[in-house]
């Protein structure tokens, strides 16, 4: 929810007007009688009731929405709780205009009417801390409001930062699957590299794969030499040094020359177009693969051509491995930002709200009991 979104304006106005209207009886009482406002007076009780209903509504509306939008079965007790909450929030659902509103609408309801509930609580309490239980309620409410404000602020900046730093943001739940995909692709490339590598470099290559590359792609990225761009470049440079696979400076030019040579050998137009399409993809790996597929069967390559193709492919595949690591780093950054974007909610806001709900119920029960 963007604070600068114009759709917030009606909510802000409605909240301000309701807050002002709600505070009027409190101020009138303060004007008319010297008796302090407390939660135990008639007015205070109504304030408390209104605040409790509103707090429960804004707090539990997302649980109801979750139940509404759920497509998967849940453990029985969770589903039961959700259904109970749906029943409790029945009045909201009865408003047709509100019933099919998107989640953004209910988020605004949560934020603005949550603030309104704080005003009602202030009126209910007469702006006093009270005893042990009510002090605990105040602390929880304050922390919830603060964590909500923090979450709102994070939502103003983190999504932009995420889009900037992770251009190809993936669904958060899908990241482990993508990690496995990255690792599978790396396995494939390493097998190919190993197939064309001399025997003495194969060991080094496989050691790098099993000891560094695969754990990084599948596991926790921090602490790995591939975790940062700088250390990853150093690692791949070392690998090239050990294997003797130097960087092809102008690989595109050399590929063009390689293809030109093939053209001179009267390659069919259809095959040439396929090669050029592969160039357009700007994928060295695809190019090498395609070249290999194209010529290995129909037109056997000459030894010099095979060596040149192997050189180009090694270079392309190593670069592909580096790109896999770069993708993994971007996903790690997405995970980090997602922690801040969603963690405040999971670790602070929601648990505190649950605690507040429990203690509010205790407060209500104790008040009516005595």
């Amino acid at each position, binding site marked *: 929810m963007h604070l600068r979104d114009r759709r917030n304006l009606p909510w802000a106005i409605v909240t301000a007007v309701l807050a002002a209207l709600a505070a009027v009886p409190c101020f009138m009482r303060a004007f008319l*009688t*010297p*008796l*302090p406002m407390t*939660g*135990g*007076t*008639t007015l205070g*009780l*109504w304030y408390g009731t209104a605040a409790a209903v509103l707090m429960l509504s804004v707090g539990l509306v997302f649980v109801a929405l979750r139940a509404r939008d759920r*497509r*998967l079965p849940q453990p029985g007790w*969770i589903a039961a709780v959700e259904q109970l909450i749906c029943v409790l929030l029945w009045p909201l659902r009865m408003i047709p205009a509100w019933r099919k509103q998107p989640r953004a609408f209910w988020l605004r309801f949560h934020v603005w009417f949550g603030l309104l509930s704080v005003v009602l609580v202030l009126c209910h309490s007469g702006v*006093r*801390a*009270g*005893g*042990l*239980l*009510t002090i*605990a309620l105040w602390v929880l409410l304050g922390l919830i409001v603060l964590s909500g404000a923090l979450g709102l602020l994070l939502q103003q900046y983190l999504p932009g930062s995420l889009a900037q730093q992770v251009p*190809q943001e*993936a*669904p*958060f*739940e*899908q*990241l*482990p*699957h*993508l990690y496995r*995909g*990255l690792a599978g*692709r790396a396995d494939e490339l390493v097998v190919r590299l190993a197939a064309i590598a001399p025997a003495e470099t194969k060991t080094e290559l496989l050691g790098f794969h099993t000891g560094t590359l695969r754990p990084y792609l599948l596991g926790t990225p921090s602490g790995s030499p591939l975790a940062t761009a700088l250390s990853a470049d150093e690692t791949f440079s070392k690998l090239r040094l050990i294997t003797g696979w130097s960087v092809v400076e102008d690989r595109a030019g050399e590929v063009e020359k390689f293809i030109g040579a093939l053209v001179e050998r009267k390659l069919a137009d259809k095959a040439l177009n396929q090669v050029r399409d592969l160039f357009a993809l700007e*994928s060295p*790996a*695809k190019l090498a693969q395609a070249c290999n597929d194209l010529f290995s069967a129909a037109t056997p390559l000459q030894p010099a051509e095979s060596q040149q193709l192997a050189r180009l492919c090694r270079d392309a595949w190593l670069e*592909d491995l580096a*790109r*896999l690591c770069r*993708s993994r780093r971007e996903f790690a950054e997405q995970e980090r930002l*997602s922690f801040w974007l*969603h*963690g405040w*909610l*999971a*670790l602070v806001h*929601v*648990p*505190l*709200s*649950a*605690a*507040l*709900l*429990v*203690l509010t119920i205790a407060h209500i029960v104790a*008040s*009516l009991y*005595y």
Partner: protein
Amino acid sequence: MSLADRSPKALTDSLELDYFRRQRWPRRLRTWAAVGAAVLAVVAFIAAVGASGQRSFQAGPVAEPHAGFADDCAKCHGESFRTASKFWTSSPHFATPDAACLHCHEAGRHAARQTENTGTNDQASNCAGCHREHLGQSLVRLSDRYCTQCHANLAQHTSGGPAKYANTIHDFAGHPEFGAWRNEQLKDPGSIRFNHQVHLALPATLLDSEKLSEAERKARRERLGEMAPAFENLNQQQCQYCHEPDAGRRYMKPVRYDNHCSTCHPLRVPIVASWTDEKSRSLALAISGERLHHPGPGQTAANVRGECLEHLFRFLAKAGTPSAMKQEPARPPILDRPLTNTDRSWAEARRAEIERILYRPQSEFARVNDTVLWSQAGCAYCHQEKTAPDQRPNGLPEYEPPQQQSRWFPHAEFNHGSHRAMACTACHEKAQTSTQTSDVLLPKADLCKQCHNPAAGVRSDCVTCHLYHDRTCEKRGLNGMLSARELVPGFGGK
């Protein structure tokens, strides 16, 4: 397809379409963290109730005087709060009946003619209507609005005709002149003649006059004798030489002759005669220097006469006057020989002479020299005689009682101790110029308002000066009805 070539299309191709079925930590953690926090809240609540008992549910801390039974709610709340019923009834029910308060407190009503908050047996009622507990503040430092509920329009809240107090008061700024000043010119009813101006200026004049040389000053101090230190004290302490605060430093104790006057105004018996021998002369001088006791409350000039005779007889006993009546049965116990007729007649003559001086009418003061130093002026120098000089019973004068006024504003409380940083004359401005006993040196309301106003920051609420309950109705006073064990449930630390 390579994941490294992640165009949006490529990314979509590499995703599992049912990925949303697999929840990751934020959602899973959110559920379990919420459940855990709720359980933790329940545990914390149970622990708090176990540790603090009913105190956990208090609406706020109790006031300090009630802290002793904070955990025993039933001490005050003898009835149910009936919280649910308050949803539809606006009548305040504080669950604190007056009986709970009156069990420990005697709370006299405020005024006989008030029509509200008045219970039976001269007790105030609806205690909790004003004294609200659990607000974390004093139970007696109530806001002015509790007072102005009635005093903003007193006629509506009293019976029996117009009130003698101002009908409309909203705050101290609008407070009328203090009651004692409000009617005719206020006069001190005291009968002791006293001149503040002289007493505040004289010591400095006598002791430290710049016109005197050092030798003259020394000579003057010698001449002043035992009065010199008293003058020095008076010079240094000024007002508080005579006006001593009480133990609570709220008010001033009455001025006492023995403590404050007798050094400079001693009551002596000058034995004056033509002495033929040195022994009698020196003995007469010594006894003349001794002070007589000033009559206390209920005593009269007869007491002075008795002590005067005692001095004279003692002189006779020690002077060794020849005695011809050793068998005289009636004699003062201090004599070591019988009293002779000669002794009696001599002593009577001396007494008459002494009383002539001591009880001299004020009209004869002009003929007295050096009255201050030797107190030759007699009692009338300070006291006002009720009887005419020629109609004194037994020749003894009767004087008006001093009538020192200890409280001028009986409806207000004052604390001199709270104002100790200020000079006395900051409020009692006329003290240095007052010459008459009838001068009332108390400040008026306008002077108090100079400091006691919201802008100056000095508190100006009603309860700063006024008490609501009439403490004269507290018949038991400081002798309450409860034992310590009854009052404090935790008596003995158990």
